[in-house]
């Protein structure tokens, strides 16, 4: 369907461009007047925050790459060169380093939002699955980024994690050799990790574009988990949510700055200030905090192959979540039983994180096994069963109804009383 766009912009330059390439019309439609449920709480900030965080990571990363040397002989010192000799290099690097942690904090809260309010349920299954792809890509990117400073934890973390693939029968050792580019973690490994660490963020940008595109087809979920019924249920994205997201971005930047300026190494490991040494193994090889829950799942199983499968499975199970959840009610707010199970799941993940930071002995083994069991039990058993058995609370008739309710009702919109939420 060729044909010029009928642009409504008054500015002649914008109009001229928009007639031929309607990017302004598109932006106006998707971010200007885009109808957005009016009842978002601050949990709905975290998608925008993740987007801001990705931009910060890409920008700081490009400047770091200008001064970094992906060579085992030079990498460690080149990072210190950035910290000491490059103008504001310490700032760029600390922002990038702590930006990774912030990215995971923001993304984990974003995922919790989706889990609690049922944002993965029909019709948003594909949107959710793209989100899982984003999470996995993020993890791969973060892992390879952590290897680049070539400290002790970089080296040994890379060794331990890449070795996990050797658990797979037949193809395992071949995969490991391919990852290493040789027969141990060495210069070829560092080179390819650097190349991929630079590439993957742009793949992320692509998948995030699809994630947002899918979101703009289905529209956003909301804390009530019910569909938008009438235009009264929505607000234009701008200025209502641009300004609300801005408040969130300011608060997020305060937390981010507190880390960068006052505790830049708080989340790091002292061992990574020691240059990589293949002959000396650190007493504890611990991944960055954001991998600890998965690390604990891996270690909770005595069998290596099974442990690796469980670890990857803990992520892959997310793909089928929309079909494991049998409840038609989205928001846990109206699910009196499930609400406690999902909060317990969060507790299990936090406990797993703590277990991952400790040596697997004594109480930590038991705790991580119980938590791992619950992690999978929650998705594979509790979700399908509770969805069938639970009797959800009555859903509000519409998004604007509970907001107006306090003022004593007013005339009911036509047909609003007819059927409460059969689709939910």
């Amino acid at each position: 369907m060729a044909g010029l766009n009928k642009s409504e912009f008054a500015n002649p330059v914008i109009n001229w461009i928009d007639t031929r390439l309607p990017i302004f019309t598109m932006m106006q439609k998707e971010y200007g007047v885009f109808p957005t449920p009016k009842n978002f709480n601050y949990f709905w900030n975290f998608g925008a925050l993740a987007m801001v965080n990705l931009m910060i990571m890409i920008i700081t990363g490009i400047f770091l790459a200008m001064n970094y040397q992906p060579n085992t002989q030079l990498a460690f010192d080149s990072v210190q060169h950035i910290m000491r000799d490059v103008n504001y290099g310490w700032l760029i690097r600390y922002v990038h380093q702590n930006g990774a942690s912030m990215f995971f904090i923001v993304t984990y809260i974003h995922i919790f939002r989706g889990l609690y309010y049922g944002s993965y349920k029909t019709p948003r299954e594909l949107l959710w699955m793209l989100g899982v792809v984003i999470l996995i890509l993020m993890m791969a990117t973060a892992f390879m980024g952590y290897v680049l400073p070539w400290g002790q934890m970089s080296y040994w973390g890379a060794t331990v994690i890449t070795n996990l693939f050797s658990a797979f029968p037949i193809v395992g050792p071949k995969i490991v050799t391919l990852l290493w580019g040789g027969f141990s973690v060495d210069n070829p490994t560092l080179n390819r990790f650097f190349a991929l660490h630079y590439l993957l963020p742009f793949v992320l940008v692509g998948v995030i574009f699809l994630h947002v595109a899918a979101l703009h087809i289905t529209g956003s979920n909301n804390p009530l988990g019910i569909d938008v019924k009438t235009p009264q249920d929505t607000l234009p994205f701008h200025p209502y949510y641009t300004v609300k997201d801005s408040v969130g971005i300011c608060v997020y930047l305060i937390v981010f700055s507190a880390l960068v300026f006052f505790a830049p190494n708080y989340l790091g490991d002292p061992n990574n200030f020691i240059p990589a040494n293949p002959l000396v193994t650190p007493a504890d090889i611990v991944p960055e905090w954001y991998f600890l829950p998965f690390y604990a799942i891996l270690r909770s199983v005595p069998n290596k192959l099974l442990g690796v499968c469980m670890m990857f499975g803990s992520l892959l199970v997310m793909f089928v979540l929309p079909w494991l959840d049998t409840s038609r009610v989205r928001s846990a707010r109206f699910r009196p039983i499930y609400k406690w199970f999902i909060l317990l799941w969060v507790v299990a993940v936090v406990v797993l994180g703590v277990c991952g930071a400790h040596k697997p002995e004594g109480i930590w083994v038991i705790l991580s096994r119980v938590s791992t069991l619950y992690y999978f039990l929650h998705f594979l058993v509790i979700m399908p069963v509770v969805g069938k058995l639970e009797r959800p609370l009555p859903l509000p008739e519409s998004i604007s109804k509970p907001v107006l309710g306090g003022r004593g009702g007013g005339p009911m919109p036509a047909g609003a009383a007819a059927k409460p939420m059969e689709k939910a």
Partner: protein
Amino acid sequence: MGKLRTILAGVFAAGLLAAPVVAEEDTAMPNMKWSFDKIFGTYDLAAAQRGFEVYSNVCSNCHSMKLMHYRDLSGIGLEPEQIKAIAAGVTVPQGVDDQGAPKDGPATAASQFKSPFPNDQAARAANGGALPPDLSLIVNAREGGPNYVYGILTGFVPAPANFKMQDGMYYNKMFPGHQIGMPQPLQDGTVEYTDGTSNSLDQEAHDVVTFLSWAANPELVERKQIGVRVILFLVFMTGITYAVKRKIWSDVH
């Protein structure tokens, strides 16, 4: 028999009481006051300069600081002339001469700190097989940071009677495993300070740790100063943005 049982019980009880005390004394991390602690903390430059004296006179005989250059010393308040004088007193390799033979010459402000040994093997050979670690990042590279390094420097005590020491090792209550390859480097009066500060072991250790903390995090002061301004600005921005949000949302029911 009854007597023996009483004695055994007594020994057991004493063991129970004593064991945690000993363990605590052995591993407790000292908790010193550092000038660079806290949000507004900065480096005590006089202490850092004294610490540099300790490093140059004592530590640098075995420990390198490869990430440091003499020019960096402006960060602890040394003047360019002082830095030039310090560098000029050090002989470092300077490429090759016209005949292609390696030559030495006086260091300049731009030179790296001179390492005591040409390579790790030479360092090990001269130190009974132990490799003295590079000190550029030592404060960041150890759990406990400055307190740990201070604890090592002041942690040389006589080994307990029943403790089995290996040859060429020294007992240190802070060091993991308590056997360290480094003999006690600092004692009361090891370094004669040019500014006349009393040179007790505590003072020397405290000064050199201040210097090493600066060496590991030379950006710390500027970082905190920028940080305070950035956060004040962001708090202000949050307030303004929240007010705008309230205003815009005031017509939403």
